[in-house]
Every structure is written in structure tokens, then in C-alpha cells.
């Protein structure tokens, strides 16, 4: 059978499961007796095993199978997970990630078998082998229990007979009918699972009344089940009869029939009575049972939720977004052309406007992904770093639910990794140093995300040693980037900016983690490519904070259209602070830089006409009053001098195309209502 069509889904799902595994393993490391987490880890390993088996990735299947063995032993209390064991499990996770990445790249699982990891897993099992066997024997006599262990999914649900079912069963038994629980296992190679199941159901329905089916009959019909299903039937026929009848169907590998006895059902009630006896042990048992049940209920809910989602290729969303963009351009055009106050027209254009705005919002929302998808790999990373550097590091994350455009999410990971490593490696002091300055031995790194207007802010803060500004100053001179005189005039904040210059590294020694020459300049370039900015706030001895600000969306924004000479330019509204009219005589010269004073703030002037080389710009000397757009780049303000303002407009950002990509001062282009192109100014590179 051609499996290629499932490959993408497999990869996507496998990645999700691995991520889940990652989170759970970290939790397990903190609390190695947590049954819930163990069960979760087991469930994921089990699912991965099944998935890789189905897709024919046998090496991956072997590895997950071994993992499952160890995990099963763990959750059955045969031994307790120590940090060594968790390390091995992490290694498994890494190995599985390599498999999935290889599969994503080549559609093959590759030749690496990770024998060392498999060996370590086996060693764990052997070390505890003797004890395990004894335990195994102890649990052997209870056959029903054994079945449950093999089929954890069935186990929890078979117990879930509701009161109505129980009543039906009771009545049936009272009238001397037989009640059986029939577990049918299909051949693994079975191609038409639903068809086989259908035949089995026909037999059952002819000879009995099926009162319960797990999974549901509809799911079985739609082939939404593994290779087995369980039904509870009421019948006059015997156990033997069903065994023969069902076994006569092709491709059935096993049929197990267990009579349902009234006592079993009563026992649950008995337990509830015990509960009222105030026996403390019992309360705990019941409580944990209730918890477990809640869990399965939660999982059930989760499952249902995912059942209603659709996986969509991001490219299709891009197409949709492009179409919405076209619509908005046309809408703007209509708005401009309807100068007449024809009532009907104005009304319908307003209606169109409302619809396009909602459509835009809806499409945007579809593209939004919580930053959690990026953040969730960091705990593991920090754990590894803290071991490597032998520093205790606590990572505190907040605002994981903050959403960002999918394209941004894909790009933001690397810069964040870089900054986090930087904080862990350079920011945080060593154990001893921290104790010396009366700080807690463990260093803290805070990773926060939150929405701020039309921006999303991501902060990485550490409580380490802070940036040594003097050292940076020396370095600037030493590297010959600036003269000593000039450096001495720079403020601390300006000095820190130099950290983002290419080839600037203050690390005394090069570690594996950072200081490899690719420095913060890469981070800055990447963030700015996303239309964002990055800033640093640092206090010597207290710590540093990296602040990243990224626009919520990249495709459609509100902008101010301005005119310089005969050319039209768009300035993103998000980076505009205010508009001011300035008289030419108010312009002063400070340190060879033209500035204006605005409410006691000194704001540098950018003469856009000159910088952009507009041929027919109105010379500023001829103006009685100059219109200044005060733009902000992070905390800093600059005054952009323009000839006139056109107005605010919703614009669609388009790239300049391959040939002109990376042109200075220009962030992109947009198509105006009249069909002409206006360039979007890149405030970051224009600001002084």
C-alpha cells in the first residue's frame, strides 16, 4: 500500500508526541513517582510504537518498543526512575527525534539503529529482571487483569459501564440470559478492518443484543479503531457458539469471551459503601481512582477536540491570505472612487468594508499559533545547558498562550535559543560566585511573552551579573570600531548597542554554547527581518533583560501615507508616535546632528527627501512649517520630515521581489487604491 500520503501526517503527529514526551520526561525528572506522568509517557511511547510500526519504520518501532518495556515496568512499580534512567529516556527521545527528522528529509528512517540506547534500555530491564519475573507471576492468575494490562485503552473504558447498562445487564441475568464481554483482535495485516468488523457485528446482531461497543459502532464503521474492539452482548447462545462463529470470519487473530457476572458490577457499589466507612486508605484509593477517571475524561475531551480540527498546509493559508489582500486593495479602490454621495453605494461599500475586516481577522486568527510551540522546547534545552555548565538554572516561563503569526513562530525560535544560551552562559554567574554575592545558588531565567497593542513582546531576563559596560567600552576601542574619545561620550545604553554589531563578542573564553563569533548581530538581523526590534536592559550585578518586540501580523497593517515630492510612501502606524509641525528655525544642531526639542525631549531629525534621494522633494528651507512624523524604534524617537500627509490606510505588505530584496530603507511595497505602488519605509533602518 502506498504510505506516502500519510507521511506528512505521521511526521507532524510524531513531532507532537515527541514534544509531549519531552514535557512529561521533564516532569518525571522532578517527580519520579508521579503515576499520571508515567502513564502519559507510556501512552506516548505506545502510540509512537504503533504509528512507526504502521508506517513500516521498524528501527523506530524497536526503539519505542524497548522504551515501552521500561516504562511499563516503571508504572507498575517494578522499579523507580532515577536520574540515570531519565537520562536514558531523554536519549531515546533524541534518537526518536533524529529518526523523525531523517524521515522528514528522506522519507526513510535511515540506517542508524541507536544500539547504544537500546542496549541501555535493555540493561535497565536486566538489572531488574529477577524482581520483575516474580511480580509478573504474582499477577498471572488474574487473567482479566492481564488483558487489561496489554490493552490499556480498553481497560479504562470497559469499566465505564453506566448505570443504565448495569441495570440492563442485571435484568438480563435475572431472566437467565448470558452476558458476555467479547474482545475481538483482528490480524495486523488486515486491510479492510471495517469490513471484517462489520461481518463480526452481523454475527453478533443476529444472535444477540449488543449493548455496548468500544470503540463506538460508528467509529468502527469509519475504521477509526486499532486492531481490536470490545463489545458487551446479551444473548441466549453460549460462549462456545460465539467463539466458533467469530473465528470463522477471516483475518481474525483472537477472540476472547469473558462472561460478565453480576458480582463484578456489585463490587463497585460495595466500594462506594466502604468509602462511607471513613477508612483513610480507601478514601485515597477512591480519590486517586476518581482522578484517573477524570484524566481519561480529559483525554477523551482532548481527543474529541482534535477530532474537530483540520490540518491545513500553511501554503494554502498563504493563498487565502493573498486573496484577502487582493480584496482589501479592491475595497480601498472602491472607497476612493465613490466620491458621489450616492446612498446605496456608500452603504454597500461600508458593508463590504466590515466584511473584509472580519474576513481578514478570521484568516489572521487561523494563522495564529501560541508561542508555546516554540517555548516548549526550552525547558529541555536549559536542563541540558545547566548540566553542561554545571550551573543550577531555573527557567520560569509565562505567557505561553500568547499568539503569533505562524511565519513569525517559525523564525523566532533560533534567536530565542541564542539569547537564552547567552543568558545561561554569560549572564548567570557560577554557583560559587552567586553565593558570594548573596544570591540564591540557582540562577533564574525568566521567559515571558505578552501582547502589547499591535506587538507581541518576548522578554528574556536573568538575575545574573549584568553586562559589564566598561568591558564593552574597552572592547569597542580594542577592536578599533570607534576612537577612545568617541566611546567616552557614549551613554551606557549606546555602548550596549554595540553588542549587536557583527563580530562583537566579549566572552573571555569561547565555550561550546556561545561566543562562536555568530553573535547577537544575527539575532538582531533575524528579528528585524520579522519587522521587530530587540533591546537590552541591564543592571550591573542584578541581571540583564533582552526585550524583543514583534508586530502581530506581517501581512496587512494600518499605515500612514505620506508624500515626499511626487512620491508616496507608507509608514507603519504601529511605529508612529505622533505628528508634529516644526518651524525651520526651531531645528538645532547637537553634536553635528539636527534635532528638535519636543516637550523637553531631544529628537534627531531625518530628512527623508535627502536620504531617499527624492528628485522633486520640496526643499525644507522653502517651507514655513515642516511636517514631522515622530517615529519610534523601541524607546527611541526620530522625527521624519515629509512634505505632506495623505492619510491613514489599511495596506497589504508585499515583498519587493527577489531582485530588490534587501534594499536599504525600504521594508516592502504596497498597492494603492489607484493601482500604483507605494513603498513602505523601514523605520528601523531610517531612525537614528
Amino acid at each position, binding site marked *: 500500500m502506498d504510505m506516502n500520503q500519510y507521511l506528512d501526517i505521521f511526521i507532524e503527529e510524531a513531532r507532537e508526541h515527541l514534544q509531549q514526551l519531552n514535557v512529561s520526561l521533564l516532569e518525571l525528572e522532578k517527580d519520579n513517582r508521579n503515576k499520571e506522568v508515567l502513564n502519559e509517557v507510556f501512552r506516548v511511547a505506545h502510540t509512537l510504537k504503533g504509528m512507526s510500526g504502521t508506517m513500516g519504520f521498524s528501527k523506530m518501532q524497536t526503539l519505542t518498543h524497548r522504551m515501552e518495556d521500561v516504562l511499563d515496568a516503571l508504572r507498575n512499580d517494578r522499579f523507580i526512575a532515577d536520574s540515570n534512567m531519565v537520562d536514558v529516556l531523554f536519549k531515546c527521545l533524541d534518537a526518536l527525534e533524529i529518526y523523525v527528522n531523517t524521515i522528514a528529509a528522506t522519507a526513510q528512517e535511515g540506517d542508524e539503529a541507536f544500539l547504544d540506547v537500546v542496549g541501555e534500555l535493555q540493561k535497565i530491564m536486566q538489572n531488574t529482571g529477577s524482581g520483575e519475573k516474580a511480580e509478573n507471576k504474582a499477577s498471572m492468575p488474574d487473567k482479566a487483569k492481564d488483558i487489561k494490562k496489554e490493552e490499556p485503552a480498553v481497560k479504562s473504558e470497559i469499566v465505564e459501564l453506566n448505570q443504565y447498562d448495569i441495570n440492563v445487564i442485571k435484568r438480563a441475568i435475572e431472566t437467565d440470559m448470558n452476558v458476555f464481554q467479547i474482545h475481538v483482535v483482528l490480524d495486523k495485516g488486515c486491510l479492510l478492518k471495517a469490513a471484517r468488523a462489520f461481518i463480526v457485528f452481523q454475527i453478533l446482531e443476529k444472535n444477540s443484543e449488543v449493548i455496548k461497543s468500544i470503540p463506538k459502532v460508528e467509529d468502527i464503521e469509519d475504521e477509526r479503531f486499532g486492531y481490536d474492539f470490545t463489545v458487551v452482548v446479551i444473548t441466549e447462545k453460549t460462549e462456545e457458539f460465539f467463539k466458533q462463529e467469530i473465528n470463522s470470519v477471516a483475518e481474525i487473530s483472537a477472540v476472547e469471551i469473558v462472561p460478565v457476572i453480576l458480582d463484578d458490577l456489585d463490587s463497585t457499589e460495595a466500594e462506594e459503601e466502604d468509602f462511607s466507612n471513613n477508612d483513610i486508605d480507601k478514601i485515597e484509593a477512591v480519590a486517586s481512582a476518581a482522578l484517573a477517571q477524570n484524566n481519561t475524561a480529559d483525554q477523551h475531551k482532548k481527543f474529541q477536540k482534535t477530532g474537530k480540527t483540520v490540518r491545513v498546509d500553511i501554503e494554502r493559508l498563504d493563498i487565502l491570505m*493573498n486573496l484577502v*489582500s*487582493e480584496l482589501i*486593495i479592491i475595497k480601498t479602490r472602491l472607497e476612493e472612487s465613490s466620491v458621489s454621495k450616492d446612498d446605496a453605494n456608500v452603504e454597500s461599500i461600508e458593508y463590504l468594508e466590515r466584511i473584509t475586516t472580519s474576513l481578514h481577522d478570521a484568516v489572521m486568527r487561523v494563522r495564529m499559533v501560541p508561542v508555546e510551540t516554540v517555548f516548549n522546547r526550552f525547558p529541555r534545552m536549559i536542563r541540558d545547558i545547566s548540566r553542561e555548565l554545571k550551573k543550577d538554572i531555573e527557567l520560569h516561563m509565562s505567557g505561553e498562550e500568547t499568539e503569533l503569526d505562524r511565519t513569525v513562530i517559525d523564525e523566532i525560535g533560533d534567536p530565542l535559543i541564542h539569547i537564552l544560551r547567552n543568558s545561561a552562559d554569560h549572564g548567570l554567574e557560577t554557583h560559587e560566585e552567586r553565593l558570594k554575592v548573596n544570591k540564591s545558588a540557582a540562577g533564574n531565567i525568566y521567559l515571558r511573552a505578552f501582547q502589547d497593542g499591535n506587538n507581541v513582546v518576548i522578554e528574556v531576563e536573568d538575575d545574573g551579573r549584568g553586562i559589564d559596560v566598561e568591558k564593552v567600552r574597552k572592547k569597542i576601542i580594542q577592536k578599533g570600531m570607534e576612537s577612545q574619545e568617541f566611546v567616552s561620550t557614549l551613554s551606557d545604553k549606546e555602548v550596549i548597542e554595540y553588542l549587536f554589531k557583527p563580530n562583537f563578542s566579549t566572552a573571555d573564553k569561547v565555550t561550546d554554547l556561545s561566543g562562536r563569533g555568530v553573535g547577537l548581530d544575527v539575532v538582531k538581523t533575524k528579528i528585524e527581518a520579522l519587522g521587530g526590534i530587540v533591546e537590552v536592559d541591564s543592571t550591573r550585578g542584578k541581571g540583564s533583560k533582552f526585550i524583543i518586540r514583534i508586530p502581530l501580523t506581517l501581512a496587512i497593517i494600518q499605515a500612514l501615507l505620506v508624500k515626499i515630492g511626487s*512620491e*508616496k510612501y507608507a509608514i507603519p502606524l504601529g511605529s508612529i508616535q505622533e505628528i508634529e509641525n516644526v518651524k525651520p528655525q526651531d531645528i538645532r544642531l547637537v553634536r553635528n546632528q539636527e534635532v528638535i526639542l519636543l516637550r523637553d525631549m531631544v529628537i534627531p531629525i531625518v530628512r527623508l527627501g535627502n*536620504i*531617499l*534621494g*527624492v528628485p522633486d522633494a520640496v526643499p525644507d528651507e522653502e517651507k514655513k512649517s515642516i511636517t514631522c512624523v515622530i517615529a519610534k524604534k523601541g524607546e527611541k524617537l526620530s522625527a521624519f520630515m515629509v512634505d505632506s500627509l495623505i492619510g491613514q490606510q489599511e495596506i497589504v505588505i*508585499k*515583498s*519587493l*521581489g*527577489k*531582485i*530588490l530584496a534587501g*534594499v*536599504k*530603507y*525600504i521594508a516592502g*511595497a504596497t*498597492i494603492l487604491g489607484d*493601482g*500604483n*505602488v*507605494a*513603498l513602505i519605509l523601514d523605520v528601523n533602518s531610517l531612525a537614528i
Partner: protein
Amino acid sequence: MENKSLDKEIKQFVAFKVGDQEYGADIHKVSIIEKTLTTARVPTTPDYIKGVVNLRGEIVTVMSLRLKFGLPEIEEDDDTRTVIFKFNEALLGIIVDAVDEVISLKESDIESVTQITNDRSLDYILGIAKVEGRLITLLNIEKLITELLEK
């Protein structure tokens, strides 16, 4: 069979005029030919880059072949055309004085050039074809676009 062998030999070129020279470009690289479009100047680019235009919702870079080849700029008129080329997913519009026709050339009609001309366009020439007494310079559009992409 006959057709196939003909296809192999005969190549089609779009012939256009810049100054008093006639040029040809491989028809497979031509995406569309437009009358002049309103360009938006892009700052900090060389003068032969006229700017960008809106081609049915797509932003396309446009350059002047006159300026690129060191010829004086002229007023646009009714004959002026923008030939849009597509190569390596990059779109480039080239402003020419006029588009004449599509010509079919046999391999044997094309002569490679080494020292025939000495103007600035030499770098971008595939060869020269003689058709009915006219001399047509065949342009290497791939090279032109690749060079722009590398900048």
C-alpha cells in the same frame, strides 16, 4: 518525427528595439509584454533600475535597457513597451523602445560573437542573427537576471 526535429532546430525570439539596435530574447523566458506601467522609484538603487510596478497584484522590478547599456534616456511614447521576463522565480521588466515581432531562427542563423561589437551590452549577448539583412543581437536574459539577483 519531422516536426520534432524542426522544433529542435528552430528557436523563437521576441525582437525589440533599443536605440538603433535590434535585440532578440528567447520567447520561453518572456512572461508577458505590457504597455508602459507606472513605476515607483526605489531609493538607493542604480539609475537603470526604474523602480517597481504593479503587475496584477504582483510587485515587479523594472529596468531600462537604455540606461543599462549606457544610452541616453528618451521620453516614453506609444511604442514603448515593458517586456516582463521570468527566470528562477524572479520577475524582471525591461523597458524597450518598441517590440517588433516574434522571429524564428535556425541554429545556423546564429553566429556567436567575440569581437563584432564593443559596446557595454557585449556581456549579455548570446549571439547575433542575420534575418533578411537585419542584424539582431540575441540577449542572454538569464545572465542579466542572475547578475541582478547576486547584487
